[in-house]
């Protein structure tokens, strides 16, 4: 049995990789032709945190106990925490492999900061506040990363919200190239049974440049300077992946995965403006200009619901006996929530057309619901619209994002491409689950798949 390399491409999306640019991506397409490929159905919500950790544990966000980057610690209004590695209590693939004396290189996987010791090495990801924060295990590999990455390894792009697109594009290329160089250096130095790198560049370029290539996008202009920016980046990325594949041995297996896909964004829905209009939310004072909503601005004695911005909307109820100034009687919670869902799902676009919003109750979509989930999770216009938390915008439908330019939203399906040289695959469905990745990795290494993992191994019986 060879080693296993997993290349994670945050936000890599099937309509581009499998369809539109298939012939321009010989390395990715080749792996799929020799092995198999599928669309990979993400978590609810399809966001970096919790999706990568769900993939690596085969546990859903409810079981993991975090529902996004930022989560409620208590029912106080402003008691939030950022879900870093400290909050990951379920065992990851590398925990199991370490227990079975197998060595892992975990590189840039989101939600691994602060890095925890393991049998192998870990380079944590963009949730590290800075490079001087001790973002690697063991600590001394940080110097090697810089050395391999032309003197300055990059955790993420700098100043993503810039209007200087030339600069942003350059920064994304620089980051990806440096990260591939650094990963290759570490991977070449020691024998790792399992190695996984996650590259964030695709996510960053989708959000920054989608409008320039997507003919359907409201802001698309034919013949613009960045028309091929995303395509060219995918082509370059495919070559970097090709270089990496060169160092694999004949019997090594490879998987390429993404945590979610991408789609064009119509615009943003100012969820808190809508809530105000519907009488659910009252502010102490109406801001005169667009302002990010802070809970201290809310008059909670006159508020039943407030929301948060992001690629999806998180909805919080102000419940009597639960929140400090709760307004919704506890016994009315269920009926209130059902009626609210209907109203939110019926919210139209700026022209009064239906947009197909989908709203989820956490207890309906997770096996268990730990810690404090939002009361509702909403895909506005089925993720064609993002949620903007700002108030004082004077409108519900916003066509310039409240946090700066953003052209793309997340889509529910990412990619899975894999080739296992000495293990046959089961019949691969058109859509596989993100929860199937961890059981497949454990099965490959002969580690018994724990019964409480949600997914199943995609590998067939070992060849005798």
């Amino acid at each position, binding site marked *: 049995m060879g080693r296993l390399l997993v290349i994670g491409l945050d936000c890599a999306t099937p309509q581009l990789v499998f369809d539109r640019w298939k012939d321009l991506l010989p390395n990715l397409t080749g792996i799929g032709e020799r092995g198999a490929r599928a669309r990979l159905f993400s978590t609810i919500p399809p966001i970096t945190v919790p999706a990568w950790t769900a993939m690596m544990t085969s546990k859903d966000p409810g079981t993991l106990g975090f529902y996004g980057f930022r989560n409620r610690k208590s029912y106080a209004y402003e008691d939030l925490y950022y879900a870093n590695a400290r909050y990951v209590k379920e065992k990851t693939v590398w925990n199991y492999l370490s227990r079975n004396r197998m060595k892992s290189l975990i590189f840039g996987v989101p939600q691994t900061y*602060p890095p925890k010791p393991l049998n192998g090495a870990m380079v944590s990801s963009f949730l590290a506040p800075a490079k001087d924060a001790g973002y690697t295990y063991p600590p001394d590999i940080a110097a090697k990363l810089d050395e391999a990455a032309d003197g300055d390894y990059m955790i993420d792009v700098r100043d993503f919200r810039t209007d200087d697109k030339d600069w942003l594009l350059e920064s994304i290329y620089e980051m990806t190239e440096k990260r591939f160089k650094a990963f290759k250096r570490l991977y070449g130095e020691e024998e790792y049974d399992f190695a996984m790198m996650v590259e964030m560049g695709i996510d960053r370029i989708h959000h920054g440049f989608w409008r320039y290539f997507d003919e359907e996008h409201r802001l698309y202009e034919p013949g613009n300077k960045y028309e091929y920016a995303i395509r060219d980046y995918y082509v370059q990325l495919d070559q970097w992946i090709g270089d990496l594949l060169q160092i694999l041995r004949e019997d090594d297996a490879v998987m390429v995965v993404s945590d979610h896909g991408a789609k064009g964004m119509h615009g943003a829905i100012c969820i808190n403006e809508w809530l105000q209009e519907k009488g659910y939310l009252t502010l102490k004072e109406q801001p005169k200009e667009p302002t990010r909503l802070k809970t201290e601005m809310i008059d909670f004695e006159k508020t039943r619901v407030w929301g948060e911005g992001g690629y999806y909307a998180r909805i919080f109820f102000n419940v009597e006996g639960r929140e400090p100034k709760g307004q919704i009687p506890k016994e009315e919670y269920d009926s209130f929530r059902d009626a609210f869902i209907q109203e939110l799902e019926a919210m139209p676009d700026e022209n009064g057309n239906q947009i197909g919003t989908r709203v989820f109750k956490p207890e309906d979509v997770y096996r268990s619901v730990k810690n404090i989930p939002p009361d509702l999770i909403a895909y506005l216009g089925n993720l064609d619209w993002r949620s903007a938390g700002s108030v004082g915008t004077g409108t519900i439908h916003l066509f310039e994002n409240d946090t700066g330019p953003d052209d793309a939203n997340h889509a529910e399906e990412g990619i899975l491409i894999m080739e296992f040289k000495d293990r046959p695959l089961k019949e691969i469905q058109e859509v596989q689950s993100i929860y199937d990745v961890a059981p497949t990795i454990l099965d490959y290494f002969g580690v018994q798949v724990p019964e409480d993992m949600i997914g199943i191994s995609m590998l067939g019986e070992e060849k005798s």
Partner: protein
Amino acid sequence: MRGFTLWVIGPSVSNNESLARAVEGDLLERGVRVERLDAGSIGSFVESSQGVAFVANLLTRNDVVCICSTPAPKSAERQANRKLIGRYVEAYAKSSEAEGEISFEEPDKPEVVCDLIQESEEESMTQILKTLEILGFIPPSDFDDEYSDEDEDKIRQRLQDLGYI
């Protein structure tokens, strides 16, 4: 990390072995170089606790963590093992009379006492690991890793810039 030997002793050899396996699993997960010597492994070649201690000492001085669960029922032999190995931690796993498999002399001063009659194996494992952390044999696992206010501001700003929140 420097080596040491953890010897799990008690009247039920199977309980000792099971607890030793649990501790081994956790240490492996933390990336610790660890070997376990029990009746099924070294016990088939070496009969005396003195022989097992000899091997444990070799591993320990080469900075491998060694977990022994072979029977060491006599107080005097355990004292000799402790003296030979030096970096030695004794975990006494108390089992019920019915589970007792060997005639066993109670230890004088084990580093940690696990009451397998009252507590679960997982609780006993945690107690052993905590003891190893407190005595400085292994690094603490519960590190203080909440973001500082300043770091949290940086993360918030980054996530806002990236559109995540």
